[in-house]
């Protein structure tokens, strides 16, 4: 006889089954994508851990799996067709049966470490029991939609389940920044996207491989949806074969140690990392550090948007609170899904704070996050996010800036205290028909050449690595030019006088001057912020880098100039723009959110990579370092004197240390005269509202309950800001011009040609 409780359970199960059977759309699952923690220990894992307790064996298996991940990484890097693959914007990893990434390749884009577990968990939850799909040995699943857990949909993953005698033991996956994905602009990261439907392929996790073979019908559909069909095929194969190699290595462990030992190794590794992270957090001082960065552009128009962080450490808890951050812009591409923001914070730890820990999801697992849905760092399902890098990179910077203030006092450090890295992908995204008649859409690996932040005891390194991959390369320009119809006429030359000053200065960025040569169907995009406002902060009295615009020279064929009057060509942005050496050319500057722009042969597009942040008071900079920077062409003599207060002979660069000391002492006195007591300064400079004449988004001063939505008259509840639609900048411009025309007509008494409404 059944009890009431039994009946209730049966009813509940029936309801659950009914809901499952009648779900019309398996969209992103909040239970999966809002949870970055490792899964609870399963009974199977418990049993395996009881059985295998020898730490030497666990360690040996882990090392073999790590080697396998490096091998897979190498395969993708060597064989991959996408520029991102060639230059390290990839990762390979091994995931537990529950989907937790345990071991990832040491190189590559480590943010993937914190993201690819989401689509695997989706597959586990939805496809294993689904009779029309299923998960079998030899299957492979593809995924790219960030709403199911990813950075942006230019990154494609191949996911392979690994079985032993019919039992799912773990997963292998490989992820590559592929570039092209069929979006409204080439290259996979459209800043013109106003809805998610403008962003190209949006692949929820689905099966694309059976019996270790790519299904040709699905492949053809995918190829037919993108501008680079050959690349789509080649890289799917490369990722599949990398996963198959991982599977082979995993099966070798099955042979030697057995699948249960491998399961124990994966679980033990993840749990050990979680424990170690808590121990390390405990060593930090208990406090709250507050910081913010300024986004100066939506990539379509300039605006001020705030990324706000209060980072609190208490005991062994570390809480990233992004309350007060700008609301999402519902028709702009710069929003990020929550996993992307968390992943990038994880990247800050894996790259710059605890690089000695295994590259896996566990490092981020014990860290807590607070964010509001409908904001730039936690956007809605509807909001486009193809340029999520913008808000993701700012999330990295606030994390890096805040953590440095915790780390300084710690007796045990795993890296040196570091000022924020440059955080924007100042590079050319390109597309069109190349000199071989092929359609292409991708980008220059110069995005990987961000300037490093200064450390507590040394200058930052120039153009070292992107914030998302410490070991990515900037590639060989000459190799690139074999496939694309443009040249970088100036490349890898440091942009003088753009350093972030400090006791130790930031590593600087380099100039890129690109010009199309061999195609009438070719164009460029640039997709970064920071042309009006620096995107980072300095540290402990050091400054941020400056701002970095786009400069263009049109109405010129510079290749003709190089043939006829080569002396007219200048090898720097400042000479070209200031001297205007080509008589009939047009010279202009722009913010760095240039939508896809068809270029003509010989026109110049000029940009610069950015500088990492400076560290410490510039008056403490070793004068010999100042001279070295002058000798290396990084800074001009006059500017060095002004910034660092050094005295030296202009011809011999011989330092006058006594005069330098006096200059610096005098300047310290000047500071004391110029500086105002805090309260007086606040009274004079601090306003109750944001600037009225600039669109501002985010919280103001200490009030975190309210956020502004583009106007001082549009205030919203920070917990539920609602959608914001920004007017097309072309419509704004048309409106301005119409108003101007109306005023001129009125003044000149010229009636409109058509007054009908």
């Amino acid at each position, binding site marked *: 006889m059944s009890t009431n409780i039994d009946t209730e359970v049966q009813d509940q199960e029936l309801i659950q089954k009914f809901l499952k059977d009648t779900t019309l759309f398996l969209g992103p699952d909040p239970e999966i994508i809002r949870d970055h923690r490792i899964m609870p220990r399963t009974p199977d894992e418990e049993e395996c851990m009881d059985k295998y307790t020898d730490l030497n064996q666990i360690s040996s298996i882990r090392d073999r799996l790590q080697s396998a991940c490096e091998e897979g990484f190498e395969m993708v890097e060597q064989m991959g067709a996408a520029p991102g693959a060639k230059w390290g914007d990839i990762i390979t990893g091994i995931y537990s049966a529950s989907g937790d990434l345990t071991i990832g390749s040491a190189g590559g884009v480590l943010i993937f470490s914190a993201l690819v577990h989401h689509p695997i968990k989706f597959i586990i939850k939805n496809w294993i029991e689904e009779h029309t799909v299923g998960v079998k040995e030899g299957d492979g699943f593809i995924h790219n939609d960030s709403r199911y857990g990813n950075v942006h949909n230019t990154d494609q993953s191949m996911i392979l389940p690994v079985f032993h005698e019919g039992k799912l033991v773990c997963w292998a996956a490989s992820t590559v920044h592929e570039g092209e994905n069929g979006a409204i602009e080439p290259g996979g990261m459209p800043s013109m996207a106003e809805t998610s439907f403008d962003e190209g392929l949006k692949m929820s996790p689905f099966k694309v491989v059976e019996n270790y073979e790519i299904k040709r019908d699905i492949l053809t559909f995918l190829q037919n949806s993108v501008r680079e069909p050959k690349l789509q095929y080649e890289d799917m194969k490369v990722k599949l074969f990398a996963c198959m190699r991982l599977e082979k290595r995993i099966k070798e462990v099955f042979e030697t140690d057995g699948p249960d030992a491998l399961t124990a190794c994966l679980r033990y590794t993840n749990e050990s990392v979680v424990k170690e992270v808590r121990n390390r957090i405990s060593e930090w*001082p208990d*406090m709250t*550090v*507050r910081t*913010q960065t*300024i986004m100066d552009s939506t990539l379509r128009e300039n605006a*001020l948007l705030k990324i706000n962080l209060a980072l609190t450490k*208490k005991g062994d808890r570390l809480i990233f609170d992004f309350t007060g951050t700008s609301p999402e812009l519902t028709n702009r591409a710069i929003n990020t899904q929550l996993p992307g923001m968390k992943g990038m914070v994880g990247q800050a730890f894996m790259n710059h704070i605890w690089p000695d820990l295994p590259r896996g999801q566990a490092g981020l697992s014990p860290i807590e996050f607070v964010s509001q849905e409908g904001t730039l760092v936690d956007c809605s399902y509807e909001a486009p996010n193809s340029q999520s890098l913008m808000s993701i990179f700012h999330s990295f910077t606030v994390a890096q800036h805040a953590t440095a*203030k915790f780390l*300084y*006092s710690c007796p*045990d*450090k795993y890296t*040196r*205290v570091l000022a924020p890295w440059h955080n924007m992908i100042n590079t050319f995204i390109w597309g069109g028909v190349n000199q071989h008649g092929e359609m292409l859409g991708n980008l220059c690996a110069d995005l990987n050449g961000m300037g490093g932040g200064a450390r*507590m005891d040394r200058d930052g390194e120039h153009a070292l690595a992107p914030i998302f991959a410490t070991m990515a390369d900037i590639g060989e320009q000459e190799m690139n030019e074999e496939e694309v119809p443009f040249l970088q006429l100036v490349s890898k030359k440091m942009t003088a006088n*753009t350093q972030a*000053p400090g*006791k130790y200065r930031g590593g600087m960025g380099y100039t890129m001057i690109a010009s199309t040569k061999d195609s009438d169907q070719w164009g460029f995009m640039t997709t970064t912020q920071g042309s*009006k*406002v*620096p995107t980072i*902060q*300095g*540290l*402990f*009295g*050091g*400054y*941020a880098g*400056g*701002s*970095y*615009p786009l*400069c263009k020279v049109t109405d010129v064929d510079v290749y003709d100039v190089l043939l006829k009057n080569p002396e007219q060509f200048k090898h720097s*942005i400042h000479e070209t*723009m*200031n001297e205007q050496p080509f008589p009939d050319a047009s*010279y202009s*500057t*722009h913010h760095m959110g240039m939508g896809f722009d068809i270029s003509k042969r010989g026109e110049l597009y000029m940009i610069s990579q950015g500088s990492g942040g400076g560290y*410490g*008071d*510039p*008056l403490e900079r070793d004068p010999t370092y100042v001279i*070295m920077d002058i000798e290396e062409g990084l800074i001009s003599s006059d500017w060095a004197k002004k*910034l660092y207060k050094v005295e030296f002979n202009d011809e011999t660069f011989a330092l006058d240390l006594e005069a330098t000391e006096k200059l610096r002492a005098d*300047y*310290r006195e*000047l*500071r*004391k005269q110029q*500086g*105002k007591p*805090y309260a007086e*300064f606040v009274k004079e*400079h*601090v*306003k109750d509202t944001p600037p009225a004449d600039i669109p501002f988004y985010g919280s*103001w001063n200490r009030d975190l309950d309210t956020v502004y939505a583009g106007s001082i008259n549009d205030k919203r509840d920070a917990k539920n800001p609602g959608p914001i639609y920004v007017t097309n900048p072309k419509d704004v411009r048309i409106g301005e011009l119409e108003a101007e025309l109306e005023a001129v007509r009125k003044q000149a008494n010229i009636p409109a040609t058509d007054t009908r409404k």
Partner: protein
Amino acid sequence: MKVLMTEYLRIDLETENWECRVCEHVVGSARGNYKEGLLVYKRDPEDIHPSIIDPDKYKFTFCPDKDWVSIYEFYCPSCGTQMEVEYTFPGHEPLFDMEVDVDALKEQWSHREEILEPVKGPNVLVDRTHGHNH
């Protein structure tokens, strides 16, 4: 015991004060905002980030737009050391950037030896002066 909190600031656990590490000046209570004990100056971005292209000809010049960003510099009122720089929105109040739980700090350091020079952590690079140099 004194705890080195930043390049230029430390906390004296006995007096519970922020102090300047350069000149020993007492900045203020460690339970409060150290910035309130400093001098503040609003710096023109052009002083730090020069317009490397002509501002009379071009809208964007590599120099940040001072209508869009303010640079606050914080100095020790005693020795003039620049302890902190903040890039912020024009008119925004300076951030209370380090709100320390002093009681927890005391408890934490009751189990530690005093450190007089900051720990740098592992070295990963050769010094620039001994590296490749043309």
